[in-house]
């Protein structure tokens, strides 16, 4: 496992951003937050996270729009965990290139496990 475990949380809901910031910081992550896709893209131009936690339904630029733009970026990709309340978003998210899916409301243990898996498999891929 390599050093920077930086997370980008993209969610329009302050309550979710604050909760994930507090919890995942105490779990040893460095947490960045953005209230919508446009802000997330801006942050990505400055910092490279290990995982992106992405809500789908957001103002300004929603999760789908973000995914499309992100795929077209020249930078190497990082795992994306789709975070949504809508069940039918799961398949669609996989189609469009999300690596994992977790439904709200989720258990913190599950979230942390998914994040660890993503980071590990990504690190393996990068190492290969």
């Amino acid at each position, binding site marked *: 496992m390599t050093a920077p475990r930086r997370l980008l949380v993209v969610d329009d*809901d302050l*309550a979710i951003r604050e909760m994930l910031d507090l*919890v995942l910081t105490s779990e040893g992550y460095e947490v960045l937050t953005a*209230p919508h896709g446009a802000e997330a893209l801006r942050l990505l131009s400055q910092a490279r996270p290990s995982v992106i936690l992405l809500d789908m*339904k957001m103002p*300004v630029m929603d999760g789908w729009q973000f995914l499309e733009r992100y795929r077209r970026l020249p930078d190497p990709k990082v795992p994306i965990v789709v975070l949504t309340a809508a069940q039918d978003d799961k398949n669609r998210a996989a189609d469009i290139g999300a690596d994992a899916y977790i439904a709200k*409301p989720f258990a913190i243990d599950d979230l942390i496990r998914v994040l660890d898996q993503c980071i590990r498999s990504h690190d393996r891929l990068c190492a290969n």
Partner: protein
Amino acid sequence: MQAQAGEQTDLFRLLVSSVRDYAIFLLDPQGHIRSWNTGAQRIKGYNASEIIGKHFSIFYPATDIRRGKPDYELRVAIEEGVYEEEGWRVRKDGSRFWANVVITALRDATGTLVGFAKVTRDLTERKQSEEERARLLDLERQARSDAELALDRLRSIQMVTEAALAHLSMGRLLPELLNRIGEILLTDVVAVFMADPDQQRLVLESVTGFPADAPAGARAAIPMGQGIIGRIATERHGIVFDDVPPEALAEPFLNAAGIHSLIGAPLGVEGRVLGVLLVGTRRHRRFIATDLDFLQIVADRVALAVDRARIYEAEQVARREAAEAGYAVRQRDEFLSVAAHELKTPVTSMRGLSEWLLRMADRGTEIEPSQQRRALTMIHRQAQNLSRLVTQLLEMSRLDADRLMLERQDENLTELVRRAVDQAHTQTDQHELTLTAASDVHASVDAFRFEQVVTNLLDNAIKYSPDGGLIEVELTQPVPDRVRLAVRDHGIGIPSEQQARIFERFHQAHKNSHRSGLGLGLYLSQQIVGEHDGSLVAETASGGGTRFIVEIPVASSAPVGSTPA
């Protein structure tokens, strides 16, 4: 020469006597028959010996003799030289024949009348063929007029049939149709009565030729089975009255219409009676069988048209209701999905935080007091959000049951609004909220409800300005007896096509772009403001964003006379 002349006279006599097709004979100046020929014998039936010497009036019908026609004819011949006519004459056997008659006065060289030459031709056959022709012409004319009448009737029947097929509204069709029937049957009054839905009464649906000043009772519904009209419906067959019986003349409708003769037919379709079609005349009239046939056929078609129009209308209503029901179901489904989504946010936050706290405790990891406080504050705030959502749901079901009761009393709105603004501040780290208010604005409000309104408007302002920015709240008294609260954001605004609908229950102007609450906030707010006798409107603010404006009266308008002493 003499002998030659005598020979010629003999020859001429022979010629005349042998002519078969003309009766040629001589009369003396008084009209007695002097000569006879073969034609005369053949045409009139007498032989020379029995007729010579008789007066020529013997050939005339008795009525002509009484009128002095034979003498008149001779007088004309004397005066004008010749009399000619066609007329009836009588044979020996008493039978008549149609004769062409020419009577010529004969005078000697001195001009003295010596007698008359009479030539008669039997035109009976020609006359008969002429009469036959006239009769045929007459028949043809009659047939033609019958055909025209039948065609006219057929067109009327067709008109009703077409109306039935075209779902024309009977309201538009009936008056025209009744006029048509009246023209065809040459009747004064035409009326349609329709059975009411429970088949108890016949209601006058449309009528022509009915006096405008008839008493109101003349148009009253007629119980089924009662009177002539009521019986047509229950007995289900047409009737004809050349003379309406005296007791029926007392029936209010027939009486007011002044009907003497009538035909009526039931409006029947598939064994059901929908009403009665009636025509009547004010004078005595002998109706013929085809009149009733025609009326019955028209009645059948009217019934069909009415039935189809009703089915069509019922279908339309059912379709509309189904669409409305479908809309209500979709709206409710959508609401439930939105509500579930809204509940998930606070639950996700609370679950995450509490599980994290437990995880720390299980590991025996100490949490910094500041972090612990942050977590608990967040849990607390989300619990508040949850209870607000639950309250909204309850409010909605209460409003459905019309149970929004206000407890109004004098409140310091400046303080109330300030509390709400402070609370809203804790919901956002991206917005700046400012309050401009006079120090002590008072009004009679239900404090709990009014605070809900303010909170809703602030929530909306935060939600719909996702990029943050300034939210300006103003509390003013534009006139001494009114209070005005304005909440203005610099957000995405309300699309103009949505402006009319934002106060509808469950409505979400931006539901496709991001989560936006239960869609109840503005609906509830407007209900609450309305209960305060106030108004809540939205306007697009100059420079972008939206401004919501609440205006309520300072004092509650208690009903007159119920003010407590």
